[in-house]
């Protein structure tokens, strides 16, 4: 409000005018600035206020409430004020004193500064400023008129001369004019934003941000992240899609103007209508999508698990639930299990047959090796091939079976020749190394299931020339600059032990050349034997098995086809650390004890199993129960004195604490299973897996086994001491 009631302000002297602070300030300013030229100031103010008071009188109160005059175009039509706005409003309230006006004051110029907030100018008549000096008459005239007006205002109220009267104006004739427009289309759209809808949209934003950051990352970080994200099941496609659950209202909640329920009901109608090519293509796309494959995979597992519920429950040590529905008369196996559980019939340890892994693809091939995945103990890799050379080389197979689907292998890899050795990597739990009969080493990535191995030794100059008999992944302490990396060590019949590294390509490093060592056997004919042994056909021994010491990764055992076992170190590639003599035929398997660090066991084609201690070159004890070559051996992960072995005719489980003369369980093979070729204990369940020459892997559950001794190492130690003592006694008496 710039309209200053200077009149009143002057009258009321120091007190600020009631109407608005700006008015007060303006008046004060008027006073401040040169203390006003009283008379002329008065005139000036009167002049201004004369005009303005008329305005203010009528519309003073209205101004504050009057709206702006907006234009049609959105601009403002409020007439601009004439006087320049001084937006600043200074709030000096200090000066209230009014000094007496002197003649000099009257002569002085009066500056009037008016500051204004929003103002609507409705009427703007330029005030005429009259200087009483120059036009004295006019000033006088105006002054008189002002006085007259004041008197008029005072008289107005209650005066008969002035009557309030209404007036009628002509009403403008109205005319309605119709006009036509295009129909304004209307559509209703409803949508519910559920909590997860909002989450999805935020997530999409986050993903976008991540993608931008992703490009800036270095390779190392990516590799580290990849390693950390190893999922539980390498067979399930763990590459969780980073795409959000797109098509934002997901499949089962597609919102549109019509609810999806109607869509599905209309499904019948749509079927009969011929589908357009596009739609057909879309549907076909669904059929070939990898997601569908994945879903089918999972559902197949569920279906099979339904069928084999009891078996799996037994495997996992869960109680068997009886369903209301009684099965057919074929429910022998599960019924037998139930009966056994309930009655606890036999008290002696025995095996209960659970199921067998077998599929048409592997029929006829012998199982050569079985290994559990290091990370997910439910995944089993089985290799098929031949141990002996055959005129017609069949193709080999590696199958990955899972406990979750006992009917179908989840991965099948075909190789050019029989596979003789397998090993899962510990560092990358999805890498499976396979050693072939023709000496090659392949590494498969089971996540993708592609038939191409990620690494192979086809082009490597250091590859083996004989069948690879044993493979093992070893975590190595590398040099100062490198971190511990995992290397693959292979032992082969060509007498070499080679270390493969996968860091840059597939590099090899020869660890050992197995030399033939003369067998030192006690007996009177020792000297003669030694002389005979000098005439060798080749100085190379053929490795037939290998085992790394679980405690000291630099030390490993190699069994040769001569029957000798050698302890070697990765640091020396010429010399053996130690040689063990006890077998007279190829050592098919050697395994360190998981409980005692320097005890290991070996089995050979000479029908014997030998238990050794690392510092004794002669076996601690020799076990054997049949006249068949023993093909494979496995320690029980739960009990230090128990191990299992297979020979051509039967499966035997030995408990050394109980007896070293006879096995505690024997399970003969029958005709259709052929001879047993490999045995493996299960780590997470009391079960035993046996592979045979027909391509079956049977799963047995161990029942009524003696419980594990409290101190495993001690128990095994006791066995050894006992055996040593008896040997000592025997040699003393002899």
């Amino acid at each position, binding site marked *: 409000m710039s309209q200053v009631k200077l009149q009143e302000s002057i009258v009321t002297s120091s007190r600020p005018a009631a109407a608005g602070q700006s008015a007060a300030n303006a008046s004060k300013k008027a006073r401040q600035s040169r203390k006003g030229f009283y008379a002329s100031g008065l005139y000036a103010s009167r002049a201004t206020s004369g005009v303005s008071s008329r305005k203010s009188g009528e519309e003073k109160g209205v101004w504050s409430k009057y709206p702006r005059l907006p234009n049609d175009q959105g601009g403002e039509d409020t007439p601009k004020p004439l006087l320049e706005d001084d937006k600043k409003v200074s709030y000096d309230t200090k000066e209230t004193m009014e000094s007496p006006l002197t003649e000099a004051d009257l002569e002085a110029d009066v500056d009037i500064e008016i500051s204004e907030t929003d103002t609507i100018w409705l009427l703007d008549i330029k005030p005429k400023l009259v200087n009483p000096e120059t036009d004295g008459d006019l000033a006088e005239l105006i002054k008189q008129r002002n006085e007259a007006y004041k008197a008029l205002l005072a008289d107005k109220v209650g005066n008969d001369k002035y009557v309030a009267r209404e007036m009628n104006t002509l009403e403008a004739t109205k005319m309605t004019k119709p006009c036509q427009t295009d129909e304004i289309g209307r559509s209703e759209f409803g949508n519910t934003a559920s909590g997860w809808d909002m989450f999805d949209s935020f997530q999409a934003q986050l993903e976008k941000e991540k993608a931008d950051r992703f490009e800036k990352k270095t390779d190392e970080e990516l590799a580290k992240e990849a390693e950390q994200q190893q999922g539980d099941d390498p067979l399930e496609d763990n590459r969780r899609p980073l795409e959000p659950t797109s098509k934002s209202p997901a499949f089962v909640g597609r919102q549109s103007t019509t609810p999806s329920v109607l869509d599905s009901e209309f499904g019948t109608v749509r079927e009969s209508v011929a589908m357009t090519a596009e739609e057909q293509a879309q549907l076909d796309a669904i059929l070939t999508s990898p997601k569908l494959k994945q879903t089918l*995979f999972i559902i197949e597992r569920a*279906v099979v698990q*339904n069928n084999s519920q009891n078996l799996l429950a037994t495997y996992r040590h869960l109680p068997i639930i009886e369903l209301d529905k009684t099965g057919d008369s074929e429910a022998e196996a599960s019924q037998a299990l139930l009966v056994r559980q309930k009655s606890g019939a036999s008290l002696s340890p025995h095996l209960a047959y659970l199921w067998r892994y077998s599929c048409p693809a592997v029929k006829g091939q012998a199982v050569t090796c079985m290994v559990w995945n290091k990370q997910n103990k439910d995944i089993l890799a089985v290799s098929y091939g031949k141990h002996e050379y055959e005129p017609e080389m069949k193709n080999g197979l590696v199958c990955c079976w899972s406990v979750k689907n006992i009917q179908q292998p989840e991965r099948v890899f075909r190789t050019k020749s029989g596979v003789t050795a397998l090993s899962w990597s510990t560092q990358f739990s999805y890498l499976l190394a396979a050693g072939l009969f023709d000496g090659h080493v392949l590494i498969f990535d089971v996540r993708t299931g592609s038939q191409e191995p990620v690494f192979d030794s086809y082009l490597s100059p250091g590859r083996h020339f004989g069948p690879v008999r044993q493979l093992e992944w070893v975590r190595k302490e590398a040099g100062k600059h490198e971190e511990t990396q995992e290397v693959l060590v292979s032992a082969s019949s060509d007498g070499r032990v080679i270390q493969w590294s996968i860091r840059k390509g597939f590099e090899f490093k020869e660890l050992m050349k197995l030399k033939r060592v003369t067998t030192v056997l006690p007996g009177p004919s020792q000297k003669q034997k030694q002389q005979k042994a000098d005439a060798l056909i080749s100085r190379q021994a053929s490795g037939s098995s290998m085992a790394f010491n679980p405690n000291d990764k630099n030390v490993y055992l190699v069994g040769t086809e001569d029957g000798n076992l050698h302890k070697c170190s990765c640091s020396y590639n010429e010399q053996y650390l130690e040689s063990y003599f006890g077998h007279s035929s190829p050592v098919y398997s050697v395994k360190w004890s998981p409980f005692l660090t320097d005890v290991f066991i070996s089995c050979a084609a000479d029908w014997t199993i030998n238990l050794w201690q690392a510092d004794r070159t002669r076996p601690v004890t020799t076990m054997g129960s049949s006249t068949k070559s023993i093909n494979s051996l496995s320690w029980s992960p739960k009990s230090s004195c128990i191990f299992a072995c297979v020979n051509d005719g039967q499966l035997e489980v030995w408990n050394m604490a109980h007896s070293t003369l006879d096995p505690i369980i024997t399970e003969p093979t029958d005709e259709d299973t052929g001879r047993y070729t490999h045995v493996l204990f299960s780590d997470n369940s009391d079960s035993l897996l046996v592979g045979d020459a027909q391509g079956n892997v049977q799963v047995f559950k161990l029942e009524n086994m003696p419980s594990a001794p409290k101190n495993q190492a001690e128990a095994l130690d006791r066995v050894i001491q006992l055996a040593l003592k008896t040997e000592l006694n025997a040699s003393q008496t002899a």
Partner: protein
Amino acid sequence: AEVEETFKRILSHKGVIGAIIVSYDGIPIRSSFAENDVTVQYCALIQQLAQKAKSAVRDLDPGNDLTFLRIRSKKNEIMVAPSPDYLLLVVQEPNDQP
């Protein structure tokens, strides 16, 4: 393709009554049921149920999502695997025989 092969294998398992692959529109792409109305009935009803289940799971925790739905009844079991593009359902008669 591999999909067809796996589909046929699932159907060959013991106890499996039938399996259907439904597209996101509610059109059955592959169905092992001979009668069409059975197929369509399964599609419509199961789709609604899966939608409800998915909504429930996500309302409880928006970061979660429905991966698998199993409905076990007196006579059989319906296994549903929902997905943004399609829905796969298998009906099986559960029995505990290998």
